[in-house]
């Protein structure tokens, strides 16, 4: 059992709008084992990005972390001083975002932007900073980095910009990288380059990664552990093989069944009925109950995230003694999908 670099316990982040509390992240508990990749998957509005921003203490008004703890290497991030937090960001925990064009500053060359992090975090001068920046660009596979370093973001293609973002995020060799939909805006051939690159750099630097995505394919390719989020909560957590082999939560199963596959023939997709409830209309009990094909009376109460025999953590009444619905219900029918 490896050590956990990050240990999130019962994290709650809410937004206060017009006197209402909207619980964007509602009791998330997660661990990131050292050197491993944790995937967080979910649809829009599930709270996956807000969870990531909470880790970095980047939640602004009207949002607020209202409860829980985030333990990073023994340090409690919810109550470190802002100056210490600034030091952690970029130095120990780095983040890359979805849209590389809006995350890079358009009026500075990529060299200037890379040097900035060396100056802030390591106090390096221009000459030394440039040398390190060129090394870093080379590491992310940018050809002729000594020329590229004087270019502006608009002069680079989308894939190259994302590689510059990665170079910047990894400049100080962080222990944890949070990648929030790093390839969603990119074409597939470029996506595969970026994902492979992140994987190789992870091994070289020995860092841990949190991969946030809506794409189950990306999860299967890159992650060791997966947390499935729905409406601000984790509904299922397992290692990647268990999750795809033996999904237990009806939502996870619904996601897998509605995914059109390019690698096999399917007759009919089985969609999840309805849509995600609006944040101010959250059901009191299990949040997935209104869309769940198996929902029963007990689902009007909130189930807990509990560990099952085969290793999945599942938030569902079906796997408890209190289950009052159909006995022996088959949530995942392997035959119909493969």
């Amino acid at each position, binding site marked *: 059992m490896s050590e956990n670099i990050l240990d999130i316990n019962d994290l709650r982040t809410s937004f206060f709008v017009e006197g209402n509390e909207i619980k964007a992240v509602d009791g998330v508990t997660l661990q990131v084992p050292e050197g491993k990749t944790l995937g967080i998957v979910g*649809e*829009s509005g599930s709270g996956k990005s807000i969870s990531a921003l909470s880790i970095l203490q980047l939640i602004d008004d009207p949002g607020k972390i209202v409860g829980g703890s985030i333990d990073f290497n023994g340090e409690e991030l919810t109550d470190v001083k802002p100056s210490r937090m600034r030091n952690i960001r970029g130095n120990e925990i780095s983040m890359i975002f979805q849209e590389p064009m809006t995350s890079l500053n358009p009026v500075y060359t990529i060299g200037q932007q890379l040097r900035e992090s060396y100056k802030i975090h390591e106090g390096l001068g221009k000459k030394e900073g440039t040398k390190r920046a060129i090394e870093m660009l080379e590491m992310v*596979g*940018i*050809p*002729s980095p000594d*020329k590229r370093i004087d270019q502006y973001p608009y002069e680079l*293609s*989308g*894939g*190259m910009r994302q590689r510059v973002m990665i170079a910047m995020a990894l400049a100080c060799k962080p222990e944890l990288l949070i990648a929030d939909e790093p390839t969603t805006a990119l*074409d*597939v*051939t*470029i*996506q*595969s*380059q970026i*994902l*492979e*690159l992140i994987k*190789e750099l992870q091994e070289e630097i020995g860092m841990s990664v949190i991969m946030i995505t*809506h*794409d*189950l*394919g*990306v*999860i*299967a*390719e*890159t992650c060791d552990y997966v947390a499935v989020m729905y409406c601000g909560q984790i509904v299922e957590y397992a290692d*990647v*093989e268990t999750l*795809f*082999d033996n999904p237990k939560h009806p939502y996870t199963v*619904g*996601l*897998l*069944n*509605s*995914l*059109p*596959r*390019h*690698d096999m*023939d*399917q007759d*009919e*997709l*089985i*969609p*999840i*009925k309805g*849509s*995600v409830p609006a944040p101010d209309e959250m059901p009191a009990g299990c949040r997935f109950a209104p869309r769940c094909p198996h929902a029963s009376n007990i689902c009007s109460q909130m189930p807990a995230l509990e560990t099952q025999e085969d290793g999945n953590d599942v938030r569902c009444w079906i796997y408890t003694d209190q289950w009052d619905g159909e006995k022996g219900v088959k949530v995942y029918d392997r035959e119909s999908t493969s």
Partner: protein
Amino acid sequence: MTENQLLKVANLKQYFPIKGGFLGRTVNHVKAVDDVSFTINKGETVSVVGESGCGKSTTGRAILRLDEPTEGKIEFDGQDIVSMNKNEMRKMRSEMQIIFQDPYASLNPRKTVRQTLNEAMEIQDVVPKNERNDRIIELMETVGLQRHQIDRFPHEFSGGQRQRIGIARALSVNPKLIICDEAVSALDVSIQAQVLNLLKKLQREYDLTYMFIAHDLGVVRHISDRIVVMYLGKVVESGDTKAIFENPQHPYTKALLSAIPVPDPKNKSERIFLRGDVPSPIDPPQGCRFHTRCPYATDKCKTEEPLLEEKDSVMTGSHDVACHYAKDIQSGRHKPTYEMTDVRKALDEEGGDNESTGKELEDAKN
């Protein structure tokens, strides 16, 4: 075969002028679509796939003459539509409709569902005035919306529901062909599956023909009968869905398919990494347009443009490829020139893309 044909696109070219210099003269062209030909038969779904900038959306828009095509022939149901005047074309559009990617942007925010659907029927004059209300309710129920939502505005609907309104609007004029331009790309998977199933159901019920423009190959495999793969304004491969997915011939199609992440952790396929990025369509490479990134390119590929022709001996049915070496690659006689399964080596080989940037850099310094 030909009487079954609904749409025939022949040698379609779409160039957009670049204005500049003194007096705003046209200095160059973006060759978005360059000599594209394909046909769509009645009742089938043909997908046009490719990465951003390959010209797939432009092709769709040119077919509806939302942009005037520069050159080429488009026949719909036996009629040449390029030579039609504005009025004739407007009438024609009741037969061919389009659903756009962004359901937020393609609906008028100040019109209710009733007004939106009414407007389409009014313009095309397809249903007598006194029957329109019933038709609107019927359409809403067909696409899975509730009749009490008829007087709601777009902002009161979710993304998936808005896309259903877009589908209802397209259906309202009884079209034969619907062009779906990334119609499900903006939706979450669970909603995407609902809309895909709806489109399939409607096709069966109304005998519709779809032209699907998409970049998600999972969606494409699920919905299509035939596939056209585009790269930089050209068709590089076309054929039956099964043939394209199970026996891709063009090196680009192979790389594209290998790049998609498989949602199965036990089944990690061998990746082919392409060097560099897609070149600019303003000054596309000579010869085969893919040669700057192709692992198999030779000198011949740099000068001689390959034709789209049948090269597959394994699969029957139609399967055309535009590659000089398709057969030799398949048999293993023609070997790749760079290490295409190693991402670092592929990235270092920026190929043709790098040459041009190098030149630009020199120019900038002078």
